[in-house]
């Protein structure tokens, strides 16, 4: 499975997202669906950059593969403290502007864009598997 590893730092965001988008493009995903995949990838990565390694440096890994020509499987891993991003509560998307908080919105986007999401803790790693159907 094609894999990319990087320091968990915002300066690598665009390179990592491009890696994912490139696979979706080669597999013939529509521009719209590629955008949705990029969105989910960015939100997960930014979350890792901000919270996985407080006060220290660490790595993030991304594996990407196409299954049966119809699904893109993305596996994103970090070695931060155990954290299941899928358990983050959904934000109140009906709140008035003055009460609007952005926390949780990124994770909500991830859940909205994927067809399937699984989290597991293996050894000292958080492993998040996201599945995106082509249509």
């Amino acid at each position, binding site marked *: 499975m094609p894999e990319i590893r990087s320091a968990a730092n915002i300066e690598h965001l665009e390179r990592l997202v491009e890696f994912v988008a490139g696979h979706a493009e080669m597999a013939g995903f529509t521009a719209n669906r590629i*955008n949705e995949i990029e969105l989910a990838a960015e939100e997960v990565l930014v979350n890792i950059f901000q919270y996985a390694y407080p006060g220290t440096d660490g790595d993030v890994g991304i594996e990407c593969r196409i299954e049966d020509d119809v699904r893109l499987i993305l596996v994103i891993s970090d070695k931060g403290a155990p954290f299941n991003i899928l358990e983050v509560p959904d934000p109140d998307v009906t709140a008035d502007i003055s009460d609007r908080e952005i926390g949780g*919105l990124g994770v909500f986007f991830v859940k909205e864009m994927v067809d399937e999401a699984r989290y597991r803790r293996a050894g000292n790693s958080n492993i998040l598997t996201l599945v995106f159907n082509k249509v």
Partner: protein
Amino acid sequence: MKITNTGKQKDCLLITVEGRMDAVTTPEFEQTLGGWIDEGEIRFIVDFTGLDYISSAGLRGILTSVKRLKAEGGRIVLTSLYGTVKEVFEISGFSTIIPIYESVEAALKEM
């Protein structure tokens, strides 16, 4: 991301934003808009025709600007959202808290 000031109409600064508003580029949006607010501009029409992509970081930047302008008695409206940009505004509920118009012309009529 490219931000362009395309002129002033009806006391509103017209702006186009092209490319991507992500966690890397959005601070530039906030700084550029903040600079114009510092110069005394408080009414903005932001044309997203050329915006291909926006994430929660982009929404956060817009919300920051909206709140600042509200405090200064100004306002910001958005126009011409397409594709996933439009989708992101809809699923986040942002399309109900920020005025969005189909075109700059439609926005100008309401300003």
